């Protein structure tokens, strides 16, 4: 589904990604872990189409398409979704309005008719229940005044409405209390199916107890240093990242 090869990314004078390669197949869940500042969010943002980053080398193909050639909205309509590490507050743009506009954009792209008001309301109600969000969040501005955890839940709500093929979650677990972590994990798991791929960026093994990954990668210094199965996450939790770096340096 997603194939990243030798990706080099620069922002201003700073080289952030240095030859990163990664293959994610349909139906798979991948976890990316790594020290602060190693380039995890940069990777996620570049894949979602954020401007301000320069791809100096390498390529990304998504379902056979050159992903980097598409504007962000086209990527979203093609099924790419990013749950932001820092969801953006947009006062004056209604939360439910954004959900509906996003859903209709995706449907239009697929050649489907716009969702009708009743259908949409029923859908939203169901998803909000799953996310254990109060309906009052619908009428508020996008993330406006939401607590840290509420913002993260709102990201997953958007995800579950848009039903992406490739979902990238950038530290969605950070700042969640234990119950909320469970809710978010349920939200993600409910999306899991053989046609979808999920990439989780996280610092904590705990999330992976709930959403079991097929592969775990260590991103450090702008490249993947080590990949393994879920036991790698447990090992990282115990031992930190230094040994991975040393191993890579020795190789």
């Amino acid at each position, binding site marked *: 589904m997603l194939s990243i090869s030798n990706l080099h990314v620069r922002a201003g004078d700073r080289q952030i990604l240095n030859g990163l390669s990664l293959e994610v197949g349909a139906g798979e869940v991948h976890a990316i872990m790594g020290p602060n500042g190693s380039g995890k969010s940069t990777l996620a943002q570049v894949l979602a*189409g954020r*401007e301000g980053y320069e791809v100096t080398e390498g390529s990304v193909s998504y379902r056979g398409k050159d992903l980097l050639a598409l*504007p*962000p*909205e086209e990527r979203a309509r093609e099924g790419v*979704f990013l749950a932001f590490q820092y969801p953006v507050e947009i*006062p004056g743009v209604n939360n439910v309005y954004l959900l509906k506009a*996003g859903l209709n*954009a995706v449907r239009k792209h697929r050649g489907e008719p716009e969702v009708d008001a009743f259908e949409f309301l029923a859908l939203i109600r169901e998803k909000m229940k799953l996310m254990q969000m109060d309906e009052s969040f619908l009428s508020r501005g996008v993330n406006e005044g939401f607590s840290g955890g509420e913002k993260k839940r709102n990201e997953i709500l958007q995800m579950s409405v848009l039903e992406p093929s490739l979902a990238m979650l950038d530290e969605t677990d950070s700042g969640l209390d234990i119950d909320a972590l469970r809710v978010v994990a349920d939200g993600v798991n409910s999306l899991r199916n053989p046609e979808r791929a999920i990439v989780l960026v996280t610092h904590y093994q705990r999330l992976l107890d709930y959403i079991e990954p097929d592969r775990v990668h260590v991103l450090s210094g702008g490249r993947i240093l080590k990949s393994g199965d879920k036991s790698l996450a447990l090992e990282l939790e115990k031992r930190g990242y230094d040994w991975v770096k040393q191993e890579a340096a020795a190789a």
Partner: protein
Amino acid sequence: MSAATAGTLSPKLERYRELFEKRFASDALIEHRRDAFNQFIQAGFPTPRDEAWKYTNLRRLESRDFAVAESAPVGIDPGQHPWISCTANRLVFINGHWSPALSSMMPQPPGATVLSLGEWLKHEPERAQAYLSNSPSAQTVFERLNAAFAEDGVVIDLAADAMFDEPVHVVHLWTAGLQSSMSHPRIIVRAGRNSRLTLIEQYLGLGDSALGCSEVFTNSVVGVELQNGAQMEHYRLQQEGSRTFHIGQISVRAQEHARYAIHDLAFGGLLSRLNLTIQLQGSGSHAELKGLFTPDNSQHIDTQTRIEHIAPHTTSEEDYRGIAEGRGRGVFNGKVFVHQGAQKTDARQSSRNLLLSPTAEIDTKPELEIYANDVKCSHGATTGQLDTTALFYLRSRGISENDARTMLIQAFAQSIVSSIRSPEVRGYVETLLKGRFSLRQVNP
């Protein structure tokens, strides 16, 4: 004095004199008019050397030869009229002249009077003049010009406890294909104790294409007297054509516990300037100002507000937003003046501005002058561009760049628009803004 200055007049002012003499030589109020006119002549048009006109150059306005506007026949399909619908008390002025045919009035409730100033001046010039003289004024040059040339307008008088069931809607409409003309409309409000009023002031131009739209000059003056406990909700929509010079003056005097709220929405005109002066003279009086101005292309929109806290326990709240595009230029100067003795004043002011193109400009200047020691005053001003992170966030949800921009621009205007209490006005403004900011070419 007139004889002495006559010889030294600039050709432009000389032309105003000719127009004036020709029009009003036999007017019943010629003496009053001539006083005002001479004061106008003496002061002349303001120049950028006047602090209050630093950012707004009137050279172009001054150089034009405007005739005194005449009414013209206008065919308006009742279903297609350009003004806000659903107002039962509507006074329409065509090129500054009251049009009974286009106006409509409900029976007036007890103690509530609304009439055309032009009619009153015709029938009872002296009484009308006395009434005019008592109306609040800021004594500006343009008010003098207005006092010299004013021929029509609206008088609204409310006795104690009186109120209209519906808003009073005043429409000033320029017709297309005129020769260069000027109009000096006047609105006078006197609201007695505990009376209530909603006033909608709307300035429009027909045929806003380079050819159809005439070069015209609107010089409007509004005076509002609010007696104890009176409440007024005021909406002002300036949507004139792209070749219009628009100068407006609003002067408000509020007595004890009176409340004045205005939405000042300036979208049109080539050069537009509004002076809004509010005197909180009675303790417990309150003013609420919300403004939105949107200069585009080569429009210039200047707003100067001055709130004077004169009595103790007076409060004011001011929130102005500007959105500039193209080569549009906005100016906002908000002055809050707290007089000595106006203790317990609470004044808040905010000015936020959005620049949508690199060639757009907004100058904002909040000013506080405080001569009392026990007061709460705050002000803040920001000017910025569309938030690129928010833009990306919306696009990452599948929304096109153009739609995302429109959503963010409308969101910026939202705090002003959503506070419009009249549903008819709010709906009208929302539609207007949607048309204005959607489906446009994305600026590079």
